[in-house]
């Protein structure tokens, strides 16, 4: 049994998160992913996240500003199924790997661009960093409010865009079985930000804007503390679970109390303040772990508030094979995320640690038909 993408080859001109994350998802599902890096390497190598986003891949360093470097890229792309790039619009063309040229060379190529705002439109030339995309997508205002937007560090748009790129490339490969040609795909962080979040919040009458609170504004979907001051998340997020909860804790009167009218979806401010304080007081009567045990037994959704370290010991996450050990070059054994998507008959697998810069250059060039002499010359001329 092999991965669903076994036998497909991807050339990735990616840096930071969006392109490389997509490349990694494809690599783990069987694709042979070659990461083409400039002589200085992917700048994300400074970040510990580089290791996980670039496992299962090979690395070749090529100076694409050099004509011989462009030729290497051409030969690699000619023999590949997929090209992923996440440069600022216009840069790929300058480096000789733009869509027109590459698709003429290889009409079956799936060419996937991941950019901040896309290759057309008023924001095209704004550098597509996560934060400026998030800002103009209303994320920080949504997290806080208009008068006080709040920054958060989760690279939401980059990650969502990477997921979109992964399925878009796969869909294009699937379609290629029928139409026998490749195509161009444009994924944007801006589109990802809109789709991932705005998808749930359309502009329509009656759309309620949730105020910010670090523990959440909704009384029945919120962080609470036990008597020992430890945190847990309480999520009686449907009427049925709210009923289960009230019965379990002997508070059936809440089911007809106007304070909780419309629970759990419709307890808007200012009613939420009273509801929250009633629940806060209730939860003060037992320790956190006691509440977790008690409410879990009553089939009320709750969860411990875990740090990352604690999450890495969490039995269910381990059971999902979502914590794996990878032996890295410079950091020893690294615990990192496993495969988030699993196919029963075509299981994927991590192929190996992230590559050192240019680690597979010689091997890849040799396989592409360059002789030892040619490779030596390329090295001398600082093309590779």
């Amino acid at each position, binding site marked *: 049994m092999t991965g669903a993408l076994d036998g497909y080859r991807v050339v990735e001109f990616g840096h930071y*998160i969006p392109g490389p994350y997509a490349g990694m998802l494809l690599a783990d599902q069987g694709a042979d992913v070659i990461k083409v890096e400039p002589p200085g390497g992917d700048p994300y190598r400074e970040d510990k996240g580089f290791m996980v986003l670039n496992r299962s891949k090979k690395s070749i360093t090529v100076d694409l500003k050099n004509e011989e470097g462009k030729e290497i890229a051409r030969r690699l792309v000619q023999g590949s199924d997929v090209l992923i790039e996440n440069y600022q619009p216009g840069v790929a063309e300058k480096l000789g790997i733009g869509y027109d040229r590459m698709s003429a060379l290889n009409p079956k190529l799936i060419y996937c661009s991941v950019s901040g705002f896309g290759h057309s439109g008023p924001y095209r030339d704004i550098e597509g960093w996560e*934060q400026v995309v998030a*800002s103009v997508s209303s994320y920080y205002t949504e997290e806080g409010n208009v008068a006080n937007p709040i*920054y958060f560090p989760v690279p939401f748009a980059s990650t969502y865009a990477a*997921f979109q790129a992964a*399925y878009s490339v796969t869909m294009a490969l699937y379609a290629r079985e029928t139409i026998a040609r490749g195509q161009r*795909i444009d994924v944007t962080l801006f589109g990802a930000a809109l789709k991932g979040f705005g998808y749930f919040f359309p502009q329509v009458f009656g759309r309620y804007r949730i105020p910010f609170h670090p523990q959440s504004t909704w009384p029945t979907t919120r962080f609470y503390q036990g008597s020992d001051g430890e945190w847990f998340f309480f999520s009686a997020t449907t009427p049925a679970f709210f009923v289960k909860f009230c019965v379990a804790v002997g508070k059936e009167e809440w089911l007809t109390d106007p304070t909780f009218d419309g629970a759990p979806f419709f307890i808007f401010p200012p009613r939420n303040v009273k509801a929250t304080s009633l629940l806060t007081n209730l939860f003060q009567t037992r320790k956190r772990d006691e509440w977790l045990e008690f409410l879990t037994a009553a089939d009320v*959704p709750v969860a411990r508030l875990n740090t990352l370290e604690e999450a890495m010991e969490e039995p269910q996450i381990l059971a999902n094979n979502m914590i794996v050990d990878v032996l890295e070059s410079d950091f020893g054994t690294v615990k990192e995320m496993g495969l988030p998507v699993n*196919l*029963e008959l075509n299981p994927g697998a991590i192929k190996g640690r992230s590559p050192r810069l240019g680690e597979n250059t010689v091997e890849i060039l040799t396989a592409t038909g360059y002789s030892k002499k040619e490779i030596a010359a390329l090295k001398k001329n600082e093309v590779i």
Partner: protein
Amino acid sequence: MIPLKGIKVLDFTTFAAGPAFPSFLSEFGADVIKVEPFDGDLFRLLGASFMVINRGKRSLSIDLKKEQSKLIMKRLIEKTDIIVMNTRPGIMEKLGLDYPSVKAINPRAIYLQSPPYGTKGPKTKLAAFDPIPLSLGGMYLMQRGPGNPMYYKIPFCDAGTPVLCFFGVALALLARARTGQGQLVGTSLLNTAIAYQATEFMQYKKIKRSYVKDMNAKGRNATDRLYLGLDAKWFYVSCKSDEHWKKLCDAIDLDTLKSDPRFKTREKRLQNDAELAEVLFPIFSLGNASDWVTQLQKIGVPCTMSVKEDELYDDPHGVATGMFHEFNDPMLGPAKAIGHTLKFSEFDLSFDRLAPFLGQHSSEILKEVGYTDEQIQQFIENKIIQQSQDKPLKELSDEALKQRGYPPDFIARIRTMQ
């Protein structure tokens, strides 16, 4: 081409994370049937959100607990390509709709299972909503550090799980094109929670973590953060390189800034971050946010307005690049939602229909699999299926709305609708 033309999907999902994925399949051309109990998908109570994530589907309302429904489902499964589930393990077994049962009827079917926690392990029998796996997975302490939860309003799991589901099913479609076989595909809300944190969800000797302690965080550092303009509007400036910094200094036109030894290099700027913020904040407050954004964008410093959601749907770039879908929802009236955000040179994507009323297509769907009008009428009379005639919310009486679970303050809002 329409990539999923002729592909049939049976969508058993409810609530938020589950249903969004089949609507993506519909965008790509699949025929999606949403299978609902007589009470309907509970998420219908949320009106607007339900409408967006259930675009492109038809609704079959059927009582899966009744014996006769099994024969109806068998006919549908025989003809289906993709089955989508987000229930906890154990529930579908009781209804004869687990993967082994489906496989026995149709080995070509792809079965996507995306429960809250997973299918193996200590918590799989438990229910969970978006914040639960995020809390368990460390997401809410990632920002401010241990002891200081930071809740995110954005439902990361609800948003991301559908996209990972699409990846899984696309892989299975590709595999099926080569082997002719369907298979079981799995992910979970919990897996998505981890996938969003992939670049932080790591452990090794000497790992360094950094926290943004402030609950009112404005950014990463003084040159990569939100600032407040004279017009009381916020904007985000993002200097990622020395080149950006130099350009920013030019724009600010303060000679002392560029030559100030405290801020000359990237290391020094990070070292003296608090002081730099104190220098920049008053400077930025002297000009309107929109003017700063225009000026900085012009010279190539990444900078955008911090938009509020009302303005989002008028965003000129979103409009120019066709990101929005405007329509008239039969329940809620005129609406704008996010449309197709991906561009394919070979694919034609579309929303063929809006979100369905409960049981709007029950009869039509049964007819397609060979039942006669008489048989369908029998099923309706015996309460096996339901053919509903729903109405826009504003046309329902107060009593009817109350019965559906809307409280008085929400009913009052509905009465003010046009």
